[in-house]
């Protein structure tokens, strides 16, 4: 039993209560207390990384206490490589955001700080929960403070944006809840009457194909909206644009990551058969998002909207990595989550700083800022280059791993993975196009607008808010080892287990009732072979290795370019 995570979950709530009891007029005091709690929280979370056992892909820092024992609902929390660093990112960004809002949020300051702290608990809870009901509770808990942050402290059209955000997310949640309950029932069925919502136990369940498909898409619906995946992304630009700066930073930095985290933690491991089949659709949507988000970002006139659409593009890479179900894909996706959180967070902070000074987000209002705000420009540039995936900055590591994983190992779940990666790589070009375009219009050229002449460079407070993020962008790009070595074992274990369960699901695919994994394990000695026989193995390594012996006479055709019927033609006809 380790109570570190529990402390992490409780502390922000305590902080929120303390802040709520402060006198209304004392906005600065509320901010101060909030920052103190946030920093304390961050300090407490550091042992998670330092005490994290290397080479262990399983759960660590676990706590498991019965909560509603009639239905097997437990307070079960723990972290592994997928959640560790996002937890730390959350505890880092929250105090920075509260500090960053020192001057910008005057109205109802105490309530704002309280909302931020509650939001922190919600996000952390969702990240560490290992019980589906617990997870769902925190998942919904996040919504409320975020809704308030957008709706109360946002810009002109904040209410509409808040409602859009809330309803979008609720639609997904409802489907997910139904699937969660079905899972528990299925477990009860398979085990002869044992109720549980514990992820670790439910993970042993092998569902029949249709059930997997329904549950998978129910979970994915919820997560895809959060990511957001094309075409359910339209809440994001509105929410980002209308949210106050700290809201945007947290939204981009952590909230969106919960979508991809959910896929890694729940949707893919729980329903491997359906995930294996659905991965192609996810990957296609991801790639559409990468290109689409980039092109749309390019034509934005509002700086914040531009960065919001760039999120759509970047999150596509993460989903592509997950859909490839490969060690590098999973590790890369997790790393890219951090990278996106840091770089996009920094970009939103930067635009927030401009908004504080000029009360506009229109790109055309600016220009030539590098002259008057050199340090700000330098920070912005590092964040931008990190976002564009420049090697030696954080964005490259994740992107590289994702494309390597998808390109070489994606063939068990993806059709024509190299083609998908090629299209995704076009997104890398476009990423440079819109980011540099934004940068130039904000920072370079002559100062055309006299209002910009007197703009002040970063204050000491703002510098300190920026500095940790900027330093991490550089350090994580130059020396990613401490981060990767804690993520990678989990990815390896997850991929191996995914293949095993997928194989088991194939073996079980003609039955109509769920069963447990242990009944099928001995039939899946070589899961990848079984999967390959069923679905075709298009991993380039196997495709090329197979015909190596007969070789010489005729060169083996690697991925057959025209070996298959056209997807578009027969997919609808094949469906019943």
């Amino acid at each position, binding site marked *: 039993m380790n109570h570190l995570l529990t402390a992490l979950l409780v502390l922000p709530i305590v902080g929120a209560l303390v802040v709520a009891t402060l006198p209304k007029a004392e906005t600065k005091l509320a901010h101060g207390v909030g920052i103190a709690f946030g920093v304390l929280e961050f300090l407490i979370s550091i042992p998670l990384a330092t005490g994290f056992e290397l080479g262990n892909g399983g759960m660590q820092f676990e706590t498991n206490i019965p909560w509603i024992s009639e239905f097997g609902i437990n307070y079960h929390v723990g972290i592994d490589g997928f959640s560790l660093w996002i937890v730390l990112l959350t505890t880092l960004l929250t105090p920075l955001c509260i500090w960053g809002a020192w001057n910008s949020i005057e109205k109802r300051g105490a309530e704002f700080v309280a909302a931020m702290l509650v939001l922190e608990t919600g996000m952390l809870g969702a990240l560490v929960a290992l019980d589906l009901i617990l997870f769902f509770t925190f998942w919904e808990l996040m919504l409320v403070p975020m809704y308030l942050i957008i709706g109360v402290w946002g810009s002109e059209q904040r209410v509409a944006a808040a409602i859009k955000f809330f309803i979008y997310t609720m639609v997904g949640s409802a489907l997910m809840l139904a699937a969660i309950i079905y899972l528990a029932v299925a477990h009860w*069925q398979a*085990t*002869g*009457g044992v109720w549980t919502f514990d992820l670790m136990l439910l993970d042993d369940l092998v569902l029949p*194909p*249709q059930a997997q*498909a329904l549950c998978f898409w129910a979970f994915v619906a919820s997560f895809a909206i959060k990511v957001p995946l094309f075409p359910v992304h*339209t809440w994001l630009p509105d929410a980002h644009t209308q949210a106050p700066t700290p809201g945007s930073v947290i939204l981009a930095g952590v909230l969106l990551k919960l979508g991809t985290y959910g896929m890694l933690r729940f949707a893919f491991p729980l329903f491997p058969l*359906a995930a294996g*089949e*659905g*991965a192609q659709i996810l990957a296609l949507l991801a790639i559409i998002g990468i290109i689409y988000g980039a*092109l*749309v970002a390019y034509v934005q006139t509002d700086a914040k909207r531009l960065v919001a659409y760039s999120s759509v593009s970047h999150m596509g890479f993460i989903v592509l990595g997950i859909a490839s179900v490969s060690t*590098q894909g999973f*590790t*890369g996706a997790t790393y890219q989550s951090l990278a996106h959180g840091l770089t996009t967070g920094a970009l939103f902070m930067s635009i927030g700083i401009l908004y504080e000074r000029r009360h506009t987000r229109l790109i055309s209002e600016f220009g030539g800022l590098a*002259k008057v705000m050199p340090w700000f420009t*330098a920070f912005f540039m590092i964040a931008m280059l990190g976002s564009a995936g*420049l*090697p*030696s900055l954080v964005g490259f590591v994740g992107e590289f*791993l994702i494309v390597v994983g998808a*390109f*070489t190992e994606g063939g068990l*779940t993806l*059709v024509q993975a190299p083609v998908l990666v090629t299209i995704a790589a076009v997104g*890398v070009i476009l990423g*440079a196009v819109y980011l*540099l375009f934004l940068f*130039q219009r904000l920072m*370079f*050229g*002559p*100062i055309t607008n006299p209002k910009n002449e007197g703009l002040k460079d970063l204050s000491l407070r703002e510098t300190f808010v920026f500095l940790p993020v900027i330093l991490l962008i550089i350090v994580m790009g130059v*020396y990613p080892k401490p981060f990767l070595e804690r993520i990678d074992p989990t*990815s390896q274990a997850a991929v191996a287990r995914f293949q095993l369960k997928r194989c088991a699901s*194939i*073996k079980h*695919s*003609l*039955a*109509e009732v769920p069963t*447990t994994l242990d*009944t099928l394990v001995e039939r899946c000695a070589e899961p990848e072979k079984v999967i390959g026989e*069923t*679905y*075709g193995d298009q991993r380039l*390594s196997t495709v090329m290795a197979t015909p190596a012996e007969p070789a010489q006479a005729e*060169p083996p055709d*690697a*991925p057959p*370019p025209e070996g298959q*019927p056209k997807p578009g*033609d*027969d*997919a609808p006809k*094949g*469906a*019943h």
Partner: protein
Amino acid sequence: MNETEFNLHFIPLFPLLGAVFNLLFGRLLMRSLGDRLGREIIHLVAIGAVAFSCFFTTQALFSTMVGHGYVRLIDTVYPWIMSGDVSIGFDLVLDHLSGVMCLVITGVGLLIHIFSVGYMAHDPDYGRYFGYLNLFCAAMLILVLGKNLVLTFVGWEGVGVCSYLLIGFWFTDDAKATAGRKAFIMNRIGDFGFILGMLLIYNVVGSLDFDAIERACASGESSLLVTTTTYGGFTIATLATLLLFLGCTGKSAQIPLFTWLPDAMAGPTPVSALIHAATMVTAGVYLIVRMNFLFALAPVTMGVIAIVGGVTALFAATIGITQNDIKKVLAYSTVSQLGFMFMAAGMGAWVAAIFHLVTHAFFKACLFLGSGAVIEACHHNQDIRTMGGLKEKMPVTAGTFFVSCLAIAGIFPFAGFFSKDEILLHVQVNSANGLFGVGDAGVNTLVYALGIVAALCTSFYMFRLYYLTFGGKFRGDHHTWHHHVREQWIMSLPLVILAGLATVGGLLGWPHVFHGAIHMPHVLEEWLEPIVATSSHFAGNLDVGVRPEFLHEGHVAAGKELTGMAIGLAIGIAGWVFARSLYLGGPSAQAEGYAKRLGPAYKASLAKYWVDEIYDFLIVRPVRVIGSLLYQVADMLLVDGVGVQGVSGSVGLLGRVVKGLHNGNVRRYLVALLFGFAVLLGVIYLNPSISRGDIMQKDASGERVLDPDIGLRRTLGEQKVKVELFGIPLLRLGPEDDANAGGPGPMRPGEIARPNLPPPAGSPDAPGGQP
């Protein structure tokens, strides 16, 4: 081959630290210590950092490598990207090739740093300038020292960013900022190819370490890289090298991605000398030579490289003839000379490519720095039509410029003569088969012709430039002539050194044919031998690259080599004489007459063949239009409008309808309740499978089968699809007969899994049993 551990990371580390120091504290130093002292510290740190790298490299090379056979220095700094079986280390290697490159980078870089002290003396952003310059050196050194492709890519992108920052150094001018952005984006297009090429190689070799790739290539035609074909019927080697070459065209400004380089002249002139002439733009040539073993396995790519190089060489040279901006002429000249290097690389003449790279670094850096001195003297005017006569007041600059002109024009005995002739000779002698079939010498003839004409143009435009700038009478205003035109020793010193190198640089590659007169080794050829050993090993059976008999003793017939040299020299002199006759005393009426007579061709060349405009029309605008369309139509109208608003609107509408029903009339509620209950019962009664939760399909024998079409994957795969209407097949895809196939894996009826637990109480159906 010997390998020794060595602290190579100091080579890029010092410029990096210099950069960090100057970027962080440069502004502060100038403010707190006063302008003069601040500047002193800034440039001493920057120059010191590069000087240290230069010294360190020289020391390492001469103490451990020169005269010790083939020794490599390795530095395994730390594991960088590790995941699963991917392991990319931050590993550096100093071998004979990266040694040459490091010397060029740090040596020429040092001179250019010194020159910058004079050139940038009055710039307020002194610290930022030297910071960027040091950062560039660090990135470039990582590029050439990287032991694997990914690390090379780090440097590759790093120099791209520094180039972006330095082109747009005077960012308050929007045009300059745009030029920087254009350079970065064009390079990014090339990087797209670089990344995909890396992935293809990784996929076969399982590593991106150069040594591992070389080992995989060592078996020549039986290497997996050649025996595996992929998209379009290309071998992996061909496709990967084509993609890498796309990266090279971006970085080294070749067709089609060359238009950024002339625009890059917006940066400070020393930057143009260092980045856009001597070092960064040659990275593409370096990459090809570094991976010569792989490129040699791809004859198609080699042919493409040779032809692209040749066409670029000529194309850029014809533009250079008409330009009036001193730096633009030099920029197009650089593009053209890089074309020569690619010509050589495409013919498998790796040594000749590196030879020209080195000599070009000397004379082109000298030319650019000379132009910088001129521009500084002429009060930042770059138009050669308003110059002239500068020889009088700037004798050192004029002299060094003239020497470099002789070198680039290929006049004996200056450096360019040797390197250019070696290239043209290889183009004649080597074979570039594979593109048009084995044994076809068409590529050779074509590329040779392109090279000869390009060399003629080179000589002409260089001497045109020289005479317009330094000859005749000054055509600018008097004030500039009297108050500005002067020389500073700190700028002249590097010029003299570089001109000296441009004079004697040819001795690095003393031709074998001259051995009769003076016996001297071809230094570079012997030095680089171990680098190209693998690829020259399979020259015989693959019929690509350097013929072994040419690489070692024996060589081509002396007559052929001498004829080639004579032609090269004649061409160089012809261009010189022609330019001299037209421009000796400034722009002449005769020159104008030619321009008029050539009419459209002249205009096309002056307008750079409208390539920028064509790209703008074909690519830049469409992307913007598509972006707008997607945003306005797809995002706002369809997804958000029809989709989201439509759903929410219809929910609202439904709400209003339902609201009407809920009017408080209990009788109506009861009727509705009864009706609903009846419908529900009816449905359940009529469709018993719902009550049983039976969603499996059954085949004719009543056996349960899995619906074969769930999921996209199966539909895409080998799955047979058959659509019939009254027994007439309408559509049939996939294998004709599946009688003996039986369906793979899980589709077999016998595969029904039975959980060994007793069926739970709530479910009456035993698994597998018929309801």
